[in-house]
Each structure stands twice: as C-alpha cells, then as structure tokens.
C-alpha cells in the first residue's frame, strides 16, 4: 500500500513488460543447450527414416509380428512359463521392497526438507545414491553372481542395490518438493527428525513414493528379464532362449506373461492410488 497506481498515470506499471529474455535468464540457456544436444544427436546419427515409408517395409514388419501367432498354449509350456513368472515376480518384488526400505533410509540424509536444515550428510548420501545407481543392474548381478553363485538370490540383490540408488534419489526429491506447511507447523512446535517425517511429510508424499516404488517394481520385472540371461532364472531366461531360437509361438507366450505381470503391477499401482485418494 506504499504507492497507489492509478490507471490514468502516464506510465502505469503494467505497461512495463516483464522481460522475456535476458542474459541472466538461466532457463533460456538451458533450453538452448537442450536444443543443441537434441539437434546434435539427430545430426550425428544419420537415422534412416526413408526405409520406413515404403509399403513393403510395413508389410515386412507386419509379417514379423504375425509370426507370433499362435502363441504356444500347450499345458506343459504354460506351466513352465507360469513358474518362471512367479520366480520373476518374487525376485522383482523382493528386490524392490528391499530397495524401497534402503532408498528411504538413504533419502532422509540426502534431502534438505526445510530451509534451516543443515543437511550435513547430504552430499555424501547423494554421492552414495549416485554410485548405487550409476552401476547398472547387470554389473551388480555379475559381481553378486560371483559371491552368491547362480540363482535368484544374486539377481534379487542386484535389483535391490541398483534400485535403492534410483528410489533414494526420487524419494529425496519428492520430499524436498513436498508442501512444507504441515511440517513447518510441527517444527515450530519443537518437534524434530523422523517424527516430523512420520506425522507431516510422509502422509503428504506417500502416494508419490508408493507410485515410484510400484513403478520401479514394474521396471524391475523387465530388468529381471535381463538378469535372467546371466543365469538368474525367470521369464527373462525363457524369453532370451526362445527368442534366440526363433520359437515365435513360445516367445509370444512369454511376452503375454510379461505383459500380464506388468499389467498386474500397473493395476495394483492404480488401485493403490485410488485407495489413497
């Protein structure tokens, strides 16, 4: 209320436009850098779009897809696929569960949840999270296979290690981003630490955390497929085996099983979010 702006003034304040671009506008530079990267990428890759326009190309793709029909639904094979699916599900579920717990534990020191937060271990925790997730599952698996031998245990741990890096980071960001008023209210009352977390921050970010976790689970179903190739068993091993041998019918069955697993987790995450609403 310091100054009153009349609409009749010679140069009313609204005539002064907010600048759209200035050299200090970091966002503009980021946009430019991103554009340069995208253009550079496409330019250096010489992708062959021409090949896709012909009718022939589409027909040939169609033929490949058609080979998947009919899927092999013979009972022994379906039983085998079902068992592998259970194995994959177990590996991915336990891996994700462990990762969610470890990720949350690491996300706490890695996030600055309020202005006054010194967050002393933030950079250390972030570095640890980065390292965990910079190492791909496959590398973790190879390391752990040496230690634990072939089998699902190594695969599970590999998933858990990589995923805790991923989830830890996502959790930390979700918590830093959450609305702060509820937590601030408790904090001005002298409550600290995990109790603020449990009574104010978590109820707010829980859907987000849950949805990231479930989503990572889904991802890990696919990742478990890759690990299967290294001898961890499950759908992945079946897929690689039959796909490599061009057993298209059997491959189709395995694909359907994977689709169902992913759809199951997707449905679960949908239901969870609905339930939390």
């Amino acid at each position, binding site marked *: *209320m*310091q100054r009153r702006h009349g609409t009749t003034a010679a140069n009313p304040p609204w005539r002064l436009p907010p600048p759209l671009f200035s050299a200090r506008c970091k966002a503009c530079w980021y946009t430019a850098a991103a554009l340069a990267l995208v253009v550079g990428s496409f330019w250096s890759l010489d992708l062959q779009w021409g090949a896709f326009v012909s009718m022939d190309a589409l027909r040939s793709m169609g033929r490949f897809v058609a080979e998947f029909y009919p899927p092999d639904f013979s009972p022994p094979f379906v039983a085998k696929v079902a068992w592998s699916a259970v194995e994959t599900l177990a590996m991915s579920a336990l891996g994700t569960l462990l990762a969610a717990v470890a990720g949350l534990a690491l996300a706490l020191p890695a996030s600055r949840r309020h202005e006054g937060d010194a967050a002393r271990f933030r950079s250390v925790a972030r570095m640890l999270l980065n390292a965990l997730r910079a190492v791909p599952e496959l590398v973790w698996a190879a390391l752990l296979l040496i230690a634990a031998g072939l089998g699902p245990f190594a695969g599970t741990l590999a998933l858990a290690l990589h995923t805790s890096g991923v989830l830890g980071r996502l959790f930390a960001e979700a918590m830093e981003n959450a609305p702060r008023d509820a937590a*601030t209210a408790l*904090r*001005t*009352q002298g409550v600290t630490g995990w109790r603020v977390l449990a*009574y*104010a921050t978590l109820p707010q970010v829980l859907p987000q955390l849950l949805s990231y976790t479930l989503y990572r689970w889904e991802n890990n179903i696919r990742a478990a497929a890759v690990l299967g190739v290294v001898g961890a068993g499950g759908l992945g091993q079946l897929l690689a085996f039959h796909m490599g041998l061009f057993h298209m019918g059997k491959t189709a069955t395995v694909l359907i099983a994977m689709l169902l697993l992913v759809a199951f987790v997707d449905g679960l995450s949908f239901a969870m979010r609905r339930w939390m609403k």
Partner: protein
Amino acid sequence: MHLTLHQVDAAHPAARRGAAPALRGISLSLAPGEQVALIGPSGAGKTTLLQVAAAALRPSGGRVEMDGTDPWTLSVRALQRLRGRLLLAPQVPPLPPRQRVITAVLAARLPAMSFWTSLRSLFYPVDIPGAHQALERFDLAEKLFERVDHLSGGERQRVGLARALLAPASLWLVDEPLSALDPRRADEAVRTLLDEARARGATLLASLHQVDVALERFTRVIALRDGAVFFDLPSAQVTPQRLRQLYAQHEDELHAPAPALDTPAPGPAPVVMHCR
C-alpha cells in the same frame, strides 16, 4: 511465557528484492498469561509477526526475547526445547491430506512424547479420550476418525484449533482462528481458547479480522499497518476513529478527515451486535 520484541525488522526470504520489508521496527512486550489480539489490514504483516514471535522466521534486525533469552542465540537443541513450549497455529490449518483427524490432533503432543510413544501412536492412537475431549470443545467430536481432507472448511479450521488444546505450550500464537467459522462457533472457539489459555497461564496472541470479537474478548489490542505497529492499546481505548484510520486504504485517507463510511459512528465503547 514472556515475549518481547525490540525494534524487530523482518522480510520473507522469498520476497523480491526492493520490496518493502514485511515488518519494520516492531517493539512490543507480552506479559505471561496476557491475551492480546492482533489486528490490521490484509498484508499488514500479522502472519509475519506471528512467525517471528514463534521463532519460525529469523528477524533481519532487532531482537526477540522469550522469557529473557534470544532464541536465535540458542543452540539447536535448546531452540528445539524452547519451541516445544510454544504453539503456532497457521492461518491455513496445516493438515496433511489423508491423515485422520485423531492423528492430526495428537500430533500437537509430539514435543512431549517419547520416541516410542510417538511411533506407537502412528499405529494406534495413544490418547483417544484426550483428542476426543479437545475436539468436543470445538463441537467436532463425531469427526474423530474422519480423514482431514473429508472435512468442510470450518471443520478443518477447528481441527487446527483443537491441536492447541493438546499442545504442551505456554505461548499460543494463533493466526486468524475464526476466519472460516460461523458466528456462533467463532464465539465459542474464541472463548474456549481464552479460557484454556487462562487456565494454563499461557500467553495468547491471536490475529483476527473480527474487530468486534477482538475488542470484546481481549484486554489488549495491537494493530499493525504496513509492517509497523499502528497502535497498541487496551481494548477500551480503541475508538472507531482509530479503527477507520487503521483500515483506511490510502495514505491520504489516514490524515485527511475521515471519509464518510456508510456506518453510523457508534458510541465510544464498542457494542457487540448479532453480527458475531
């Protein structure tokens, strides 16, 4: 608790550069057990003042003292302990969605709860009767196990107030406690707050837009305008003329003869009407 502010300036960390500070040279002193209303036009700095008084916002100048100690010189631990003795109820009740009323209300007890009790309370509320009683004071007992995001606006606000009753605080800083309440419940709420504060000897500072309530129920009224104290008087000395000036919109109105408001000027002592 004894609260003193000496020449306090404060600005919001996110405020744009060049903006006027939200508080300028505020000095005031609240005796233990005093009950003070804070009034002033929108944007005057009431919320900011409450935040400063709650040691939630660090003043950019001046000194805050609580029972003689400056909270900003304390160690983190001691500051936390000090904060355990005060309660700030924000303008918008800070209730995390999806939380149940009982959990939200019991959260006020956290400073006094041990680690294990607070953990246990997440799974099974520790003090159902206590929460029930606090809610009942605000006529909300039947919503005890409801989720806070399933409440109406006024119900949420009352949940926020019920927290005050459970907090182990000796300084209550309440921001616009009545904004979403109907006259009857507003009256009841303010009486409950005052009675409880008196019973515990807690100092109460409440910002209000309901001038009539402020004048009738509180013994002292502090008015803010543009970040500075406009007046700080016993309620009986607050004249309609002063109020008009307080809420006047433009500088010129402040000094010019009071514009003809469309209200007949009331007598010297404020008479409270059915508008409560």
